[in-house]
């Protein structure tokens, strides 16, 4: 095996990688935030709403969780545009990622919400909390605290999955890699660099979610015990 690694192209092309990574971060942060919102609402509906709401929400979760993200992206980007709804690659990517993320988050949050005991709700009632206060402070935050490890790994998985949006020419990190490797023919080096960047991003995201967890779950931070 006589292969010499040559990273010389980096001197010229590193701004491309930075721009690609930045778009990946933007795409995923927006998708995570919106996906979490969608998932939380759907989880509440799935647990507390009537049957005519629970069934469609359940169908949404099952349909998304049992089909590949790649095909979902194609349906949003190519499918919707053929029906007359033209969306840019970035917008399509965000929509597909949010829809996908929402389904997974629904399942995770549902597990958390179902772990909240009925007596907690009754206690909140007795204390005279309003409906909204009960949902936020008694149901959602404690539920989220319990499933936070699962949530944050799902967020990191979404960040990695965002590489798939390169297939509809969203100029994120993976698409940048494809572009640079077709210019330089240094595919091995390019993909190794990008793999390292993704690895760094996933470490960074984990650290970020840990910090957010500290800020969000005051009780856990002060007592240091599991709920």
């Amino acid at each position: 095996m006589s292969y010499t690694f040559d990273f010389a192209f980096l001197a010229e092309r590193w701004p491309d990688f930075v721009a690609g990574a930045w778009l990946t971060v933007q795409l995923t942060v927006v998708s995570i935030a919106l996906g979490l919102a969608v998932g939380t609402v759907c989880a509440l509906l799935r647990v507390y709403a009537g049957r005519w709401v629970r069934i469609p929400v359940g169908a949404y979760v099952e349909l998304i969780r049992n089909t590949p993200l790649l095909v979902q992206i194609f349906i949003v980007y190519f499918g919707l545009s053929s029906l007359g709804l033209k969306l840019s690659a970035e917008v399509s990517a965000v929509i597909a990622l949010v829809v996908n993320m929402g389904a997974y988050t629904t399942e995770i949050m549902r597990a958390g919400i179902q772990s909240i005991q009925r007596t907690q709700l009754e206690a909140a009632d007795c204390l005279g909390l309003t409906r909204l206060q009960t949902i936020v402070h008694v149901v959602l935050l404690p539920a989220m605290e319990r499933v936070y490890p699962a949530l944050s790994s799902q967020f990191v998985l979404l960040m990695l999955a965002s590489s798939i949006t390169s297939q509809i020419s969203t100029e994120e990190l993976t698409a940048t890699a494809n572009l640079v490797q077709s210019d330089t023919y240094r595919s091995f080096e390019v993909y190794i660099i990008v793999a390292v960047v993704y690895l760094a991003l996933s470490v960074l995201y984990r650290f970020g979610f840990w910090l957010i967890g500290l800020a969000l779950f005051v009780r856990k931070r002060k007592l240091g015990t599991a709920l």
Partner: protein
Amino acid sequence: MIQLNANHFLYLLQAAQWTLLLSLIAFAGGSVVGLALALLRVSRIGVLRVLASGYIQLIQGTPLLIILFLSYFGLGIMGFKLVPIVAAGLSLTLYAAAFLGEIWRGCIEAVPRTQWEASDCLGLNRFQQYAYVILPQSVRLAIPPTVGFMVQIVKNTSLASVIGFVELARAGQIVNNSTFEPFTIFTVVAAIYFAMCYPLSLAARALERKAHAGR
């Protein structure tokens, strides 16, 4: 432009067989490597534990797409020209192994400590402990999450389309290129994936319920 007809759907169904084959390759390869990884993760030798967990962290922190590109284009340029199915099988094996290894480690560790101690007292050696006492018990715990992960494998084979392996997703793109009816085609493609994955999801859930029935 060609009208969408029944032959196109037959073609998609044929391609779905390749999806299934690739899933089987990935699952078989991933199981062998994953079992080795799980055993290394609970090894008594520190270096082995670190190496195995390093590998798992590495794979779980990189997108499968990049692993695919590395094994197809990367190895190709280094002189190992792999055909798409081999490159895809290899990447999916590496990927599945990391996740299965981690799932199964949990299942091995979930076997109560006292089982280890009892088998120690009976004078079983390390191999006998694993073969006759620990692994048979962990397998029961491992089946539901493993079936659940098979869904991920089937879905992720769709990424093999990017290196030109004609499985279901790629076949959808090919049909779309000649008929240009993306909404219909990709909905059908999604439906075929759903038909493959949903039974697995249901099975995983049923097995899970059965496993917890005693509690």
